[in-house]
């Protein structure tokens, strides 16, 4: 599974409780749809740090990075590039 797919599965499972809303795709706005409460944000941070070996620094936990599956994937890629 590629990064996009693993993130999509995580979001579907944890944020959406297995029920994809109408129009759900990798650009679906998770924040506007109300799926990113504080607990979900923190859980997503913990999951991504553990699963992808990245670290969220101060200033990284902002809406732009959590907006959608694509935004989360772009954030992970950016972090991996920085680490090289």
């Amino acid at each position, binding site marked *: 599974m590629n990064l996009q797919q693993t993130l999509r599965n995580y979001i579907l499972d944890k944020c959406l409780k297995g029920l994809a809303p109408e129009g759900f795709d990798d650009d679906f706005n998770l924040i506007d749809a109300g799926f990113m*409460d*504080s*607990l979900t944000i923190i*859980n997503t941070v*913990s999951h991504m740090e553990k699963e992808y070996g990245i670290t969220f620094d*101060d*200033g990284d936990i*902002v809406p732009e990075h959590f907006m959608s599956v694509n935004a989360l994937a772009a954030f992970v890629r950016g972090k991996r590039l920085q680490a090289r």
Partner: protein
Amino acid sequence: MSLNLADLFFRQADEQPDQPVILGPRDHDRVTYGDFCRTIQGLAKTLQGFGAGKGMNIGLHCPSGAQYISLTYAIWACGAAVTPIPMELAEEEKQQILHHIAIDAIISTGSSGAGSSLFAPFARGEAIALTEQAWFFPVKPQREPPPELDKLNPAFIRFTSGTTGAAKGVVLSHDTILARIQAANQGLGIGPSDRIVWMLSMAYHFAVSIVAYLSFGATIILPKNAFGVSMLQAATRHRATMIYGSPTHYELMTHDQSGQSLPRLRLAIATTTRLAPELAQAFYQRFGLPLNETYGIIEIGLPAVNLDQPWEKRGSVGKPLPAYTVRLAGQPDGDSGDKAGEILIKGPGLLDAYYDPWQLRNAILQQNGGWLATGDLGVMDDQGFLTISGRSKEMISVAGMKFFPQEVEAVLMRHPAVLEACVFGIKAPRLGETPMALLVRANDAQPTDDIALKAHCSRYLAGYKVPVRFQWVPCLARTASGKIIRNAAKLMNR
């Protein structure tokens, strides 16, 4: 005539119709007391047309926000009581509420017919559209309400799970909630000049907070979302004087890098769970403001807030508010020291009854000589500042969402591979605690992995209750009397 909190709000709205009652979540959202009063009265009229009225109990299944508040008040305006059905729960947990508490109808919000499949097994008729987003479902009560319930003038019947994992339920009357908010306001001093940023789940937090704000003429600020930057933007834009949040929310604000400050803030209330000293320090460094730690429990409301010395005495929930007397079990009145004892409280706004098994306030208090035994352990210093040092109950708190381990153990033991389970909280960065499970394999059981166990738990439990780690052990640690030991430190060092 019996007291109704909706009438209290209507009177406040008459006095200040143009004052904003809710600002946000969108930048230009602004609802005044006058507008909100009309919305509530309109909803109440429609609900009465559907048959809602005194003696009924209505389940509310709705996300936090302006609509949650208006629906609660509309139900009260009809004379009915409210049982919150938190959106965060798993389907089975939501249905359990209907089995344990007598509910006559449900209001559920969302797209067309939202909740219809969830509540279908209980349906007593067709779902009726209450608004564009809210549906009214008449349901068959799954049990008789306690015979004395109506006499109490109930406002909330809150479902809570007990230490055995079984239901308990707490009844709060209109009079009790009024007594609580008046007692709390002797310390908080909330009035029409206050603007309060709200971030908690309204299904769990409403009685001593939202009701207080609406009864004392304050304004509620709803941020767009729970990111630190958004909470701070809302606070800045709407000139917040107070924030009411959990340590998780303050953690998210503390790590914000946008440089926004909170110049008008007079109180930053930290509730739901114990505040880590590092977070109190980080928040102070970032904003130059202390966090006001509180002690709030469903059975009594808000008996203590650290208002006097929030920075100097960080880690303490402060002195008891003037209306309350706090004593530590095993120590005489007013005595202090560093010995922890169970926190016992006397004061206004005590719960009216436990729902199941039914137990009225006086009977609850008689068990402890007129004191409410909280189940929490505390120490009190020589100046009267109370610090919560532990829980005599074994509750786990994940980012302020609390639950008993027995509830999770019961679900784990429904899995064919699990003979016995022991669940406890382990320290976790940002969340405070996360649940972990020790498991004893059932004889001849097929091996199973963590993914399957998590999936099993997720079917029956809200996400925050699902253990993050599982460990198979030959047997569980027990006390001499056979009780499971859930002390995380001891278990992890075995």
